[in-house]
């Protein structure tokens, strides 16, 4: 679908935990071409000192109902203001933006690793990839159980593993300490990750050492979201690339990690 500036109707705004909210938006037109890894640039209305849109990755799309669900984590004034929006309001968005993850092929065994709000495109990919759930492994890391979001709805699509830094859910430690990562990594044909930079870099480097296919989703600060401001560049092996249009999904082979 063409990139479009479009008002979406906020159907639901659900607080998942202290900082994470789930916003379900109704589109007036079909949203059939929005895929995991792509993002939406959202206008924050009536907020003092908020000038630019804020990018959010897509957690889910109901192609039939034409709804888009965003996971919004409060990181600053913009995201905070958005989480205060009441159902019934129109929210101006620009979508679909960026390139999606490479969808797996039918024989793939995939490992999806999400950290913090980076869990959003991982869950969407697990749901959409079309693989036998046996071959889909989802590893989710957070600081504590209170930072975790409920993933019950996505459980049928894969095997789920958890880590928390304080040990309150799943294994204690980082995602890279989990046995599925430390012991079984070479069983996977594709690794996908989205989350904090340090986490993705740790995963990316290990994937590179093991010569594994690995895609990461970057989150550089951007102004436009569609490749004209050239602010969100990542210094790749092929020079500066725009995270908004050349990414946000990159193969680790192309990065200087």
């Amino acid at each position, binding site marked *: 679908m*063409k*990139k479009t500036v479009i008002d979406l109707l906020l159907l639901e705004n659900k607080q998942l935990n202290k900082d994470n909210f789930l916003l379900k938006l109704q589109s007036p037109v079909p949203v059939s071409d929005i895929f995991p890894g792509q993002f939406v640039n959202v206008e924050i209305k009536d907020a003092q000192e908020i*000038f630019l*849109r804020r990018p959010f990755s897509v957690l889910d799309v109901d192609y039939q109902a034409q709804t888009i669900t965003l996971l919004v984590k409060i990181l600053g004034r913009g995201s905070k203001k958005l989480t205060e929006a009441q159902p019934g309001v129109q929210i101006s968005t620009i979508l679909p933006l960026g390139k999606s993850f490479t969808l797996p092929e039918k024989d793939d065994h995939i490992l999806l690793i999400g950290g913090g709000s980076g869990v959003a495109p991982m869950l969407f990919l697990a749901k959409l990839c079309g693989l036998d759930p046996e071959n889909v492994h989802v590893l989710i890391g957070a600081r504590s159980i209170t930072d975790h979001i409920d993933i019950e709805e996505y459980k049928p699509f894969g095997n789920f593993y958890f880590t928390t830094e304080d040990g309150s859910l799943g294994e204690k430690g980082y995602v890279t300490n989990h046995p599925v990562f430390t012991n079984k990594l070479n069983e996977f044909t594709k690794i996908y990750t989205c989350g904090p930079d340090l986490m993705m870099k740790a995963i990316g480097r290990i994937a590179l050492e093991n010569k594994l296919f690995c895609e990461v989703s970057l989150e550089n600060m951007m*102004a436009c979201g569609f490749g*004209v*401001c*050239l602010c969100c*560049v990542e210094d790749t092996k092929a020079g*500066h690339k725009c995270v908004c249009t050349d990414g946000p999904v990159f193969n680790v082979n192309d990065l200087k990690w």
Partner: protein
Amino acid sequence: MVNLGIKIHELDFKNPIMLASGTCGFGEEIADFLDLSRLGGIVVKGTTLKHREGNAYPRMAETPSGMLNAVGLQNKGVDNFIANIYPRIKDIDTHIIVNVNGSTIEDYVALTERLNELDKIPAIELNISCPNVKEGGMAFGISCPSAEAVVKAVRKVYSKTLIVKLSPNVTNIADIAKAVESQGADSVSLINTLLGMAVNAETRKPVLSTITGGLSGPAIKPIALRMVWQVYNAVKIPVMGMGGIMNATDAIEFMIAGASTVQIGTAIFIDPTIPVQIVDGLALYMERHKMQSVSELIGSLQC
């Protein structure tokens, strides 16, 4: 039907609404959002003789009613423009203007000579005001002798419409405008971004990799309006106004202050459909005020 047409030097613009360099790529990046042929012109991304990677990330900071950028003229150089981009955009039914940058006068001249060969580029915008490069750029635009020197050299090799983009980071912008007019500039465009900076209080580090950057957006609109008005009163050549234009009313204010055309920049980041909305808004305004031609609007400030 009101007549939105306006002539700048020898060029007829279908309307006075243009896209500002560095905010619309080469046009094609935003073609999904709007019909480019409805615009008066597009000033494409700043081009240099050689490929430039631009500055390191981070390159932007949001500020009250605006933003700072420090892109640093990232572009693939004029050869790439001519070989790969020009063929794709040359038939867009609007004036395609190239923003020309250099570190030395020789760079500006060599680049201009290359662009002179291109039939569908009827004008260049000589950028002597980029605040984000170490060499050249704004250095040429902040003193009358250096501004005169670069315009004089470029004028010798360029017979089409020569627009010079001015820096607001000067004591008296009207003096610079008069200096470039004296060397044969056909139009001046202003303002480029204002030099600014942002600091992270927690880390005590600058937000931008370059420490300072260029401020744009509505925050600079009053300054831009003032400078357009000053320059309009100082020179005979037409003025292209820009700086924080977000809607038709803003554009009209610039024209009243003396701008013959306006350029829409940072607003595109917020909503890339805004430029066409401004074209429509300008037509409605003229109908409402019973104006036949935009020339009735230009410089119509009643003091």
